[in-house]
């Protein structure tokens, strides 16, 4: 498939949800939907991951955990908010323990609606997220080149090409 240029690894965290979306994320890995045929692997380690899937809204106690997972992921990274709770708080938005959707804590790139979000929507969302990842990666590459230019040592300077 041309839309999956690389094998994105994802890490999944449940902010505070009814776990309906969590089991749908897991269902994506199983034979019926099998995202592994695109090279998507659900890894347990945030340091290996390109994509962060968050289900459920953010509350007081899960906020530092989510922030920590986000910071541990290497750049460039994409955050996908899955389910209505993750996008806006949904039916729990009036609860006393709610801080709001995931975007109240970390920047979100793609919102996947649905209560609970279907595996098909999650696959669509990951595809959208990968497009974002590709643009982010291009921008990041340019920035890295700039950074390298500053630190380049004089004897590594390329020879000027003859006219």
């Amino acid at each position: 498939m041309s839309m999956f240029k690389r094998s994105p690894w994802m890490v999944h965290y449940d902010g505070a949800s009814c776990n309906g979306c969590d089991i749908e994320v897991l269902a994506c890995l199983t034979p019926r939907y099998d995202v592994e045929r695109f090279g998507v692997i659900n890894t347990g380690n945030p340091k290996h991951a390109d994509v962060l899937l968050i289900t459920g809204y953010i509350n007081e106690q899960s906020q530092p955990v989510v922030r920590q997972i986000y910071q541990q992921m290497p750049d460039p990274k994409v955050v996908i908010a899955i389910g209505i709770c993750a996008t806006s708080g949904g039916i729990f938005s009036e609860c006393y323990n709610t801080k709001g959707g995931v975007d109240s804590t970390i920047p979100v790139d793609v919102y996947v609606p649905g209560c609970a979000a279907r595996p098909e929507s999650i696959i669509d969302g990951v595809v959208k997220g990968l497009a974002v990842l590709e643009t982010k990666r291009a921008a990041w590459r340019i920035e890295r080149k700039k950074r390298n230019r500053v630190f380049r040592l004089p004897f590594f300077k390329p020879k000027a090409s003859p006219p």
Partner: protein
Amino acid sequence: MKMTYVALKSLFSSPATANYPAEPKTYYPGTRGHIVLEVSTCTLCKICEIRCPTGAIQVDREGKAWSIERMKCIQCGFCVDSCPRKCLSNDPQYTSPASEKITDRLDVPYEPPKRKPKPETPPA
């Protein structure tokens, strides 16, 4: 040993995987996907706005518009059940993921029935 039988069986049976993004999924007719409004019969009665558990539906009587925040709707179908004119329905197709929160605003051409002007009392 038992597992070998199961594993061998899956070698020779047809794949369980639905080839999803290549072949579009066909939904069951009763699936609660997203809410659709039949604009021509809506009377802007505001019952759906009151009943919606998440406050996703907004009815603007002055601006003659019905709007729904797609990223707030939980597809419970309570508005569909409570609509007195049966102009709301569930469509099996899901809202597609997006980078922004979508709000759909529909213009409703409903004209409220004009009250009859009071008959002027003839001067005595």
